[in-house]
């Protein structure tokens, strides 16, 4: 069970809305299709859980709120409003914080953007996925390109901060194809873009089809070239990668996502959400995971006020390893001073000095101005490099 902690710390708040109109064939997120959702019951449960977290962690300060999914743009705006209200009253200090909502670009949802704004949402992230109709079809999406464009227009008229997602490295995608598609995206002058290479996740419909040879994906060489192209194009468009797949105009980075990558605390509310919360031991954290199946989560919250199913204490060493895994995803890398301040030991205690030496010499990692980073040639090899770097 989670242990109550009166520690005062910043914490990013994640709210998971687990429902979608249709399950996309590539998606392994905790998303479920239901004919009917009892909106009132869900709102009650979410608020209930928030109250229970408040009792356990009364002194946190919410640094961002993120409504993710599933499809949170299917959530009744009243629910969104109630949640924001509750979080602010528990953990707010009156400052404006980033409040993001993930949205699917259908006309119905775009029609509600204004209501979300009134509820307190100030940033929207739209799952455009592609600017090509045939690709949207392949990805099993319910929208087409023109609907996506409309949704984007509506969003930009309403919100100051709009981001959208694209999935690339799709079957048969050439460098030239992607170059044109990405240019079109950049021409819309977004302040934030998430550009993900298509990955085949275990247990998805694509996994099944891919293993049967129904389609092929770019090989590693080509995928690497697509990644490089993406980074070059976004950089020259003034939207450099600040994380492996995330690009923003300077200052427009998502605060919520930065919290994950910088190793801050975060709280997960709703089915399948995970979190890292303060522990009374310095440098350690309490990891928690929620029940994934929506109905089971709801039943658990109705009964006990919390839908948690897993707890684990993460000792300072493990937490430092996590911070390294996440921190190296950031372009700026790991702030060595901040690291030392948080964990009480220097990052280098966790690294194999021989490998650090070798990988610096081969130009895959660098250390400059108090930051430990991957170089452009190191970025595509993050997993491999982590394996070598960790002592």
């Amino acid at each position, binding site marked *: 069970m989670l242990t109550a902690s009166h520690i005062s710390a910043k914490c990013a708040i*994640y709210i998971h809305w687990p429902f979608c109109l249709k399950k996309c064939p590539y998606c392994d997120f905790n998303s479920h299709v239901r004919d009917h959702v009892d909106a009132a019951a869900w709102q009650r449960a979410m608020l209930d859980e928030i109250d229970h977290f408040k009792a356990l962690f009364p002194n946190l300060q919410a640094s961002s709120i993120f409504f*993710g999914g599933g499809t949170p743009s299917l959530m009744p705006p009243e629910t969104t409003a109630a949640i924001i209200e509750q979080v602010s009253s528990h953990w707010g200090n009156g400052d404006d914080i980033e409040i993001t909502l993930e949205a699917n670009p259908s006309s119905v949802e775009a029609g509600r953007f204004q209501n979300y704004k009134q509820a307190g949402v100030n940033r929207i992230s739209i799952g455009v996925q592609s600017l090509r109709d045939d690709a949207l079809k392949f990805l099993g999406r319910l929208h087409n390109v023109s609907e996506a464009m409309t949704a984007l227009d509506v969003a930009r008229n309403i919100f100051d901060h709009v981001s959208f997602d694209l999935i690339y490295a799709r079957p048969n995608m050439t460098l030239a194809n992607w170059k044109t598609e990405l240019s079109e995206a950049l021409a819309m002058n977004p302040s934030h873009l998430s550009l*993900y*290479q*298509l*990955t085949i996740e275990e247990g998805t419909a694509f996994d099944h089809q891919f293993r049967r040879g129904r389609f092929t994906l770019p090989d*590693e*060489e080509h*995928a*690497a070239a697509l*990644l490089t192209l993406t980074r070059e194009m976004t950089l020259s468009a003034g939207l450099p990668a600040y994380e*492996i*797949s995330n690009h923003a105009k300077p200052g427009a980075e998502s605060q919520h*996502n930065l919290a*994950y990558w910088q190793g801050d605390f*975060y709280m*997960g509310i709703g089915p*399948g*959400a*995970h*979190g*890292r919360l303060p522990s009374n031991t310095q440098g350690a954290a309490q*990891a928690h*995971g929620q029940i994934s199946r929506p109905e089971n989560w709801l039943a658990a919250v109705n009964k006990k006020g919390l839908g948690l199913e897993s707890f*684990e204490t993460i000792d300072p060493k*493990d937490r430092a*390893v*996590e911070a390294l*895994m*996440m921190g190296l*995803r950031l372009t700026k890398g790991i702030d060595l001073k901040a690291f030392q301040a948080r964990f009480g030991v220097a990052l280098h205690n966790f690294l194999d000095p021989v490998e650090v030496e070798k990988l610096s010499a*081969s130009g*895959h990692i660098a250390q400059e101005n108090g930051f430990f980073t991957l170089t452009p040639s190191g*970025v*595509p*090899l*993050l*997993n*491999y490099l*982590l*394996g*070598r770097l*960790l002592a």
Partner: protein
Amino acid sequence: MTDQKNIRNFSIVAHIDHGKSTLADRLIQHTGGLSERDMQEQVLDSMDIERERGITIKAQTVRLKYTANNGENYVLNLMDTPGHVDFAYEVSRCLSACEGSLLVVDASQGVEAQTLANVYQAIENDHDIVTVLNKIDLPAAEPERVKRQIEDVIGLDTEGAIECSAKSGVGIEDVLEAVVQHLPAPTGDPSAPLKAMLVDSWYDAYLGVMVLVRVIDGVVKKGQTVQMMAAGTEHQIDRVGVFTPKGVMVNQLSAGEVGFITASIKEVSDTNVGDTITDAKKPCAEALPGFKPSQPVVFCGLFPADADDYPKLRDSLAKLRLNDASFEFEAESSAALGFGYRCGFLGMLHLEIIQERLWREFDLELITTSPSVIYKIHMVKGDMLELHNPSDMPDVVRIDYIEEPWINATILVPDEFLGAVLKLCEDKRGIQENLTYVGTRAMLNYRLPLNEVVYDFYDRLKSISRGYASFDYEMTNYDRSDLVKMSILVNGEPVDALSMLVHRSQAEARGRVLCERLKDLIPRALFKIPIQAAIGGKVIARETLSAMRKDVTAKCYGGDITRKKKLLEKQKKGKKKMRMYGKVEIPHDAFIAALKMREN
């Protein structure tokens, strides 16, 4: 003390799985050696590994008390022998301690390769033989056909052959009667000076070194000072006992009897199997002929996967050797593998068993280098050296010629697989000596180079015959051969653990397979890695492992981090077991996997 005319010392010889251990269990049970409760299957196979693999590794004995139909009480000493060719040597020494054998043949299978090999050994030892057709409970049993086969192929009279089922117990009484009626009693002189054969010895955690003896003449008893004639050492006897199969102390063992002694003996290696034990004060006139000590024929290096385990490996090998004097080891070091041991084994099964015991009993993960036989290298200068390790191969310009060991192999195989088996033997440089038929099965005699058999011959034989072929062999001679040292180079660095001597005609094919294997086994690096097989400076096969280009995951949120961390930890553990060859890391299990030469 039992009158010698009421003693029978006998062995059971059989092809593997024909029911030797089951029959032994049944005989023990029938004569009341163990209560129903103590009876666990295959009581004589005492090591876990023996029970699991269903093979007997060490010789075992048991004393049975039997009241025959004629009303007389008999003492029957049953010596169970190992069934695998690697341990043929132990079979022969057991046989020399008995006067007769039960030849067990599975009535549904008929004569197999080891049936022949073992029965010939029994005949060589002058044994009287009782034929037992086992498994007659099986619907497929054809005792009459199998009897004819035994007469045709081995030339044994099957007039008095007994049909039984070791499983159901049918015919067990007949087997015991036949032992008493048809096998001879020992004929030593109980009043002559002590003359006993040292049959086997092993280390027991409670009793120390135990020596299995067969008394030929005279008496051995507690307190007596005995002399080991070949070793020239003297010891005072602490205990005398027999196995029932539990160890039971007795006052003495006299002419014709089998049992164990313990004495002030420190190590198993202080006892020579086949040595003659006599009374120190009143020695016998003439020693027994003795045995040639068993010689390891297959060598390989064993290195701990985790270099920190080296002292543990040393201690574990020493412990295993306490009980198995037939394998050798000496320290070896390799640039990439670190410290380890060069070990000699009686054969591939023996090697596998030791490796498995190290893992199972001592929790040691190992890197095994390519197995090698002993080559005789004749130098230009006229001297000869025995090469146990391909990496010690002298410069070719100093070598005049090389000889390699050959074997005589006997293979029995159903007709339908004959073509495939012939091809296998030809591929392995075999020379056909004979092809006859045993019923519907072909019996092949082939001369084969041992080094071809060491690799994967047995596995391949089993797989191409769907398990129906049986195989046995004996070492015969050394012969001149066009052997070359094949090196494997990874990123230009020779991998010593994988270098091997091969026949020139086989080098390219084997090199290709090895390179292909390694390509799948070596993790990719930041640069591309050429993998080559070479003879001297000449590359005969090549593969290229492409450089790693991208492995970063596109999306990573809070949720999946725990799983990723676990993956990374696994990766980290694996790293400890990697070996560096130049700039390339090779995981420890790649060595074993690469050397399993099984195609497909």
